[in-house]
Each structure stands twice: as C-alpha cells, then as structure tokens.
C-alpha cells in the first residue's frame, strides 16, 4: 500500500525528535521536575488569618470574641506576654499580626480613663491590616465600656460580583496545576521549532518538495506531530498529578486545544529561527507572553485586560476553573470558545509563516 507523505514525514520527524538528546533530556527531566514540584506543594489551603492577642485578664472576653471572629476568617491566638507576642509576629509562622494591650487596659477602658494599645505588624504587612486592627481595638473598647457609637450603623449588604470564591481558596498545588500544564505544552513549542528550523536550514525541505510531497503535506505533518507531542506530554503530566479525576473529556479537549495553540506558535518560531540560538530567542519571545496568564492565575481577582487578550488566557482560565473549582462545559464555554478562536488564528499564522518560509528556501 502506498505511504502518504504526511505519515512518512511524521515518522521521520518522530525519529529525529527521539534522537535529539537535548529535547529528550529536557522532556524527561522536565516532566519529572514538574511532578516532583506538584507533589511537594501543600495540598490544602487555610484561608483564615491568624492574629496574635495579648490582653491580660481578658481571657473570658476573648473566648466569646473568638467564636465570632472564627466565622469572619480570623483566627485569634492568645499570648500570655507582650514579649511572646512580639516574637511570634516577628517570626511570622504562627501569626501575621498582633494586638498588645497593657495590663490596665480593661480597668482603664471601663472607667473611661485614657489608655493605649499596640498593633504589631511586620514591615511587609499591608496597611489595610493595620487599619482593620485599629478598628478592632476601638470596637473592643466600646464593648468593654458598655457603650455604643453615637450613630446608627447602616445595614450593609455584601454583594460579590462575578463568581463568589471567597470560601473556595485553592491550595498551592491546585494553583500551580494549570501553570505546570501550560509550561509542559510551551516547552514542546521549542522542540517543534527546532525540528522545523533544522528542516529549513539543512535544506532537506527542498529535497522533500522535489518529490510528490507538497507544502501542505509538510505543514500537516509538522502540525500533527507537534500537537501529538505536546498533547501526549500534557496528558501524562495531568494523569500523574491526578488532574484527570473529574471532567475528563473537557480537560482532554482543553489540553488538545492547548497543544494545537502552541504548535501554531512553534511553527512560527521554527520558521523565524535558523539556528539553535535563533530558535531559543524566538521561542522565548513567544514563551514569555504566553506563560503570563498562567502566572496571573496565582493571584486572586480578575486579570488585567492585557492579560485577558493573550492567546493562552482562555487555556489557563479554563484549566483553573475546571481543575480548581470543578466547573463544567456550561460554565467554561466562553473561555473555550476564546481558546478555540486563538487556536485557529495560531494555526493559520504558523501555516502562513512556514509556508512562505519554505517556498523561499
């Protein structure tokens, strides 16, 4: 049976890829490293903020306050001396800030005698925490004095715009999962770029095109192999990191689209680079902006507009929402559509750039 040029080129490129010690090394080493990092990271997240408190003689009052604050995401840790509290805040392991009251605070506050309290913070603490703790001191003083502020507090309604994830804090492991998957996909961009650039610089492409094989066969072969290499490695990483435990089909589709996306950019990088240094340069030029959305996912809140227009934003956002929050097709379809559109654009761009490069050889 006659062999199709596409399968012949794929088989040849796969053999070349497996014989390239550099890419074989970084592929195996990279996968091992990502898996190790993933499993070393904490699997659980503690969303509460630990605050240290030293209030001599006020232990009963504190016990009552602790129950209320626990609901607000604040964990109160009681210290028996100012020195212990200061040391704990400075160390930063047990508490992130502290409230230190003098021994006469309760009596002075109850009798209306002026007194003071200390808010203990490290240099890295945000000012908003200082303001909040100062407010706590004031409220505590009013409660001890049995007084109410001379105003009627308005009723406050809390509205969370967008998806409410206040009680869905992700562990470091969960946060890093999409980043690792995206990096695995993007590393394959280097390998494909290298295969393409070598074909051009060694002019083996002219020997191929002097046979009945056409430019479209070369494009199809490179695209299929690049996608398969990136997808298979991403699936291996996803499997080893227990990512494929829910929404399996959706995740596979997302990873496949991601593989198509990086393949398109790999074709571009390979067409522009003529030697190893040039390939690394152009791959890095593409790698840096493409990895940004995954890093943005590590921080809470909606990313800036410039991040949302990057090609990999849909990929990173979909991965976070599916793997981290268990969302499904109905929730992530807009991001999936965005990712698909970028896939089409990247594939077309790769095909055009490589096609033009090939005919100029």
């Amino acid at each position, binding site marked *: 049976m006659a062999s199709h*040029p596409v399968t012949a*080129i794929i088989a040849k490129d796969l053999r070349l890829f497996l014989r390239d010690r550099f890419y074989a090394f970084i592929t195996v080493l990279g996968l091992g490293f990502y898996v190790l990092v993933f499993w070393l990271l904490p699997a659980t997240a503690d969303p509460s903020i630990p605050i240290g408190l030293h209030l001599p003689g006020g232990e009963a009052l504190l016990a009552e306050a602790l129950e209320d604050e626990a609901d607000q995401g604040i964990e109160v840790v009681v210290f028996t001396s100012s020195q212990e509290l200061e040391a704990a805040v400075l160390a930063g392991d047990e508490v992130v800030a502290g409230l230190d009251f003098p021994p006469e605070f309760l009596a002075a506050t109850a009798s209306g005698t002026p007194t003071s309290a200390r808010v203990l913070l490290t240099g890295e603490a945000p000012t908003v925490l200082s303001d909040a703790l100062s407010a706590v001191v004031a409220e505590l003083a009013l409660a001890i004095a049995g007084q109410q502020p001379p105003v009627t507090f308005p009723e406050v309604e809390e509205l969370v715009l967008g998806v409410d994830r206040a009680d869905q804090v992700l562990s470091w492991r969960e946060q890093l999962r999409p980043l690792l998957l995206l990096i695995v996909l993007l590393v394959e961009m280097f390998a494909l770029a290298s295969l393409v650039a070598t074909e051009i610089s060694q002019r083996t492409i002219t020997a191929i095109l*002097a*046979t009945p094989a056409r430019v479209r066969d070369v494009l199809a072969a490179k695209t299929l192999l690049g996608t398969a290499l990136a997808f298979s490695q991403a699936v291996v990483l996803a499997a080893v990191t227990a990512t494929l435990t829910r929404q399996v089909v959706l995740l596979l589709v997302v990873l496949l689209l991601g593989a198509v996306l990086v393949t398109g950019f790999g074709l571009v990088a390979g067409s522009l680079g003529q030697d190893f240094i040039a390939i690394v340069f152009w791959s890095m030029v593409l790698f840096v902006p493409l990895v940004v959305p995954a890093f943005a996912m590590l921080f809470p809140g909606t990313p800036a507009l410039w991040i949302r227009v990057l090609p990999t934003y849909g990929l990173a956002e979909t991965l976070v929402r599916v793997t981290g929050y268990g969302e499904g097709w109905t929730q992530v379809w807009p991001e999936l559509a965005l990712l698909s559109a970028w896939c089409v654009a990247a594939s077309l761009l790769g095909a055009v750039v490589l096609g033009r490069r090939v005919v100029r050889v």
Partner: protein
Amino acid sequence: MAWGGCGVQTEVMNPAGDLALRASDLRYAYGDRVAVDGVSFELAPGEVLGLLGPNGAGKSTTIKMLIGLLPPQAGSIEVLGMAMTEHRSAIQARLGVVFEEKNLYPTLSGRENLAFFARLFARRDVDLDALLERVGLATRGRDRVSGYSKGMRQRLTVARALLNRPDVLVLDEPTDGLDPVSARSIRGLIREEAERGVAVLLTTHDMYEADGLSDRVAFIDEGRILALDTPEQLKLRHGQRTVRVRRRVDGQVEESVVTLDDDAGDRLRELVAAEGLLTIHTEEATLEDVFVAFAGRRLE
C-alpha cells in the same frame, strides 16, 4: 519492477516519444535582479546535457524551475510530455534530483534517509541494500550520515536521486568539491543511467566534467543561454586549434605556437624542417576557451 541490484538495468518509460524535457523561454527575476532570461532547450532520453556557467549565471534558478520548486514567471516546462503547471506531482514522481548542497538528515542512517524518501515516492519495493551497494555504501548504510565523509554524502544523494527509477535526472554540481575517486564513481553512475535511457541534465562549472560527460553543452551566463551544441562542435566552431612546436636553438628551448588557419601549413613545414626540433603538440580548444569567446570572461 524493483531494483535488481548492481548492474541490473531497467528500461525507461517514455510515453512522450523522443523528448524527455522541454524548457521554453523560461524567465525568473528576484526583485529587480533577473536570474533567468529566456532560457530554452530540449533534452532527449539517454542524452546528457551539460549546463555550463559560472556561479550566479542562473543555473540553480533554472534547476529549481525544472524540478517544480519554483514556478517560472514566464515560459513553460514540459517533462515526458506533461506540462509542469498541470502535472507537477506526476512529473516529480519521475524526476531524480541531486542538489548542490548535501541536504540529508545527519542523525538518520544512510539507509533511513533512503527509506524516508522512498516512502515519499510511495516506493516500498525499492531494494535499498542494492542501491547502497551500487553507490559503494553497502557497508556504511546503517551508520548515521553525520559520520559520513563529503564524498559518501554525495554518493548517498545520488542514491536518493535514483530511488524512484527516474526517467529524468537533474544533477546540480554533483561532483563539486569531491575527491577524484568519489567524483569518478559518480560520473560512472551518471553514464550508466544515461545508457539505460535516462535523460540527464547536469549543471557544473567544471569544463572537463562537462566535456567528458555531456552529449551536448549549453553555456549559460547572466541568465541567458549563449550557445548550445555538442562539445566537439562548440570547440571546432568557436575555439582555436593550435600546434605547439618546441626546438632547441643556440642551447635554449624555443616554443612556437601556430594557429591552424589558412596559412598554418607553410609555417609548420618551416618549423619542422628547421634544426633542433624537440616536440610537436597539437592542442584543441577547451570548453573554457569557447566560453571565454562567448561570455568575454572565464568560468569561475
């Protein structure tokens, strides 16, 4: 029919009759620089046509158009009766090409290189071992090409060009930079293929190779064909034949060169009759001389 191994000949299929290749008024320019300017020639089965010209004369651009890598901006190409514009794949399936650069995959073995291109030609019946033996690489076929010498790589590219049992061979500087043994080996293969009936287009800037291998020679310079004929006719018509006579005169060797024109007889008789005759050499014009006569400059 599969390759039958060393020395086994196969017949060339030529449904188009007597013509293997026809290039008509080919033109190609890279921006403002005209590389090929109205090149026309024909090539018959079994014929070796040498395309002779200096670097930058337009040989490689002409070759690229003939093998379907570059569409001519004007003119037409017909191979085995098929127009290149309409039957590019069918034509390429019957072309064998040796490129000037040794464009092989260095991390694949010689055999793997051939196997890959055999798949592109959809030729799974090729006896690769026989082909490797034919180009003298039987014992090195499973070694990676990165360990091959320049001559071995070139012989492998020749083997690649023969994979599909081509009807037309296009060879771009096939012996450029090779040692005499490798060059002789490749010239032998070219002759074998021509004897089998394969039409061979050979580009070279080596006038001796062109003279020894070609049935006809085309001089190309600045994108135009300056002359096209058999080497003998070109040399006879456009080169000067001379006789070089050496004599010893007063203890010194004196050399006289007589151009074979109408007055040559008397002058030669005079020289031969004189005392001290040492040697008489007749000298034919070289293709280089003919090229200089046409182009006004030497081949580089």
